[in-house]
């Protein structure tokens, strides 16, 4: 197929020229094949019957046609399609002129052969070239007629040539305009595709830039929060430290009212410090800088730690803080104890903050233990007897910085960043947090975490 294409196709910048040259090649090959077949047939006849004058003329014509085709083929490939086509039309005309007795050519059986070069001229050269070919054929048969005694140029035949040329011209022209129309449509389509591609590319680029800007903004935000938190901590540390020193009597004894006021200062400073720590944690989580430090730890120690830290706060509100560890929980767990403490302190702190009457229960246990689940889990649940959380707020309370003007959440404003950090830390540990709540009866937060086998992780 590629060899055939290489023989037929002539590369050209003009698609019309390429088309015509390809067509000419096809015709040339056809003529060459016919010539070869004719040569073979004529040779056989000559061998059997002996060569009379007609046969030797035909043989000469066939050889002339074969050589002519080869020459034109070479010109078509290497030089000019137009010259080759012109020569082809001339060749056809010549061959047809000489192919029969002059009488037959002028007004006999061979006269119709001239329609072939006329048609070819309009297809291979220009559409109007059929008239030239018709003129040529007219001149040829006129000259031929003059060589025959008693003949005059056959005007009706010549007129017929021109009529045929007209038909050829019209057909070729409509063919060409149809081709041109197709090409125009293709060009338009190409342009449209290119335009759309460019628009898409531009849009993509803009999107990528916008994305990069957003990422940069996020980085800046994280760095800003981290820097501000850092800068806030130093003066807060000083306030905290001096308050503690005053309370500890380093600067002399205090009156009861002074002690109470100082207590308020330290409480508020603690709150502010917590908020700054949360902000810093959040910035680190967002920047992907928060890494867990997993190690074996004792759940009993952790729970005891929480109880001793927050019992005072609970009792100051008249609440009971109870802790419980299910007996099937291993004596040692594996995880980041510091971050687990942070999660529990946040949850218990919240529970105490929003509960006026009743108790806050902390429980460590294995959910679905023995129920045949594949995953080994352990859970921390923190329940309170507070007002409960409305259904619409249950997912929102895990968002950082909930809207201040939202009246439904206003009463929970004090939660701040705590729950959002609890959620993010839990997820960082591969766990999840769930909230169940009944309005007026209380809320329960359950943090479920994967239970790592100590032997496995320390191996």
């Amino acid at each position, binding site marked *: 197929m590629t060899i055939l294409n290489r023989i037929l196709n002539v590369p050209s910048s003009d698609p019309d020229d390429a088309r015509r040259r390809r067509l000419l090649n096809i015709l040339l090959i056809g003529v060459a094949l016919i010539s070869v077949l004719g040569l073979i047939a004529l040779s056989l006849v000559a061998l059997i019957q002996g060569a009379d004058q007609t046969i030797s003329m035909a043989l000469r014509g066939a050889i002339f046609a074969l050589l002519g085709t080869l020459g034109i083929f070479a010109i078509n490939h290497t030089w000019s399609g137009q010259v080759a086509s012109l020569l082809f039309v001339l060749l056809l005309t010549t061959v047809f002129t000489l192919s029969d007795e002059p009488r037959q050519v002028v007004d006999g059986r061979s006269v119709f052969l001239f329609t072939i070069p006329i048609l070819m001229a309009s297809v291979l050269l220009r559409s109007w070239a059929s008239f030239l070919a018709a003129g040529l054929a007219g001149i040829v048969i006129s000259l031929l007629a003059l060589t025959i005694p008693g003949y005059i140029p056959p005007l009706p035949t010549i007129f017929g040539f021109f009529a045929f040329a007209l038909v050829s011209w019209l057909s070729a022209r409509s063919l060409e305009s149809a081709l041109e129309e197709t090409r125009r449509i293709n060009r338009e389509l190409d342009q449209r595709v290119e335009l759309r591609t460019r628009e898409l590319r531009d849009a993509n680029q803009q999107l990528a830039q916008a994305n990069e800007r957003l990422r940069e903004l996020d980085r800046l935000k994280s760095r800003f929060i981290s820097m501000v938190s*850092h800068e806030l901590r130093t*003066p807060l*540390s*000083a306030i*905290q*430290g*001096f308050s503690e020193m005053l309370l*500890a009597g*380093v600067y002399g004894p205090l009156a009861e009212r002074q002690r109470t006021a100082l207590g308020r200062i330290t409480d508020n400073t603690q709150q502010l410090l917590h908020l700054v720590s949360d902000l810093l944690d959040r910035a*680190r989580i967002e920047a992907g800088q928060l890494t867990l430090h997993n190690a074996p730890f004792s759940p009993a120690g952790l729970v005891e730690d929480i109880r001793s830290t927050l019992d005072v706060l609970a009792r100051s509100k008249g609440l009971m803080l109870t802790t419980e560890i299910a007996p099937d929980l291993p004596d040692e767990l594996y995880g980041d104890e510091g971050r687990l403490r942070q999660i529990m302190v946040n949850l218990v702190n919240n529970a105490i903050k929003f509960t006026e009457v009743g108790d806050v229960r902390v429980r460590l246990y294995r959910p679905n233990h023995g129920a045949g689940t594949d995953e080994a889990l352990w859970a921390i649940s923190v329940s309170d007897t507070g007002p409960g959380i409305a259904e619409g707020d249950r997912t929102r309370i895990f968002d950082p910085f909930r809207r201040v003007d939202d009246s439904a959440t206003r009463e929970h404003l004090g939660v701040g960043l705590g729950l959002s950090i609890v959620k993010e830390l839990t997820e960082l540990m591969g766990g999840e947090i769930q909230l169940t709540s009944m309005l007026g009866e209380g809320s329960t937060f359950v943090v479920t975490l994967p239970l790592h086998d100590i032997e496995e992780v320390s191996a």
Partner: protein
Amino acid sequence: MSKPYGLVIEDNPDLATIFCEALQAAEFETRIIDDGQEALEYLATARPDLIVLDLHLPHTSGDTILREIRSNERLAGIRVVIATADPQMAESLDKDSDLVLLKPVSFNQLRDLAARLAPRSKE
């Protein structure tokens, strides 16, 4: 019996005061140095029992000082308490120090810790 000696390397005067007071409350003699380079020069001759070390210091950073203390034979055995506001730094220096305290360092906390780290309580 002389008192144990605690060195506070901290450039914020307020925090330095709090650290000093905490150490004094734990029966330490104290001294404050507010510059990293100065602290290094001082440690070339002196040998405190305990150092409270800030990490962000002018001229020479706290972790350089910590490395010097840990690589110097003569300073071996000094208790180093790092006080930093940077949790990542705290994590990275955890193994080279006796204790890392994340700022805000509580007066009471440091006082109790210093009392425990005091050399005589060990002996």
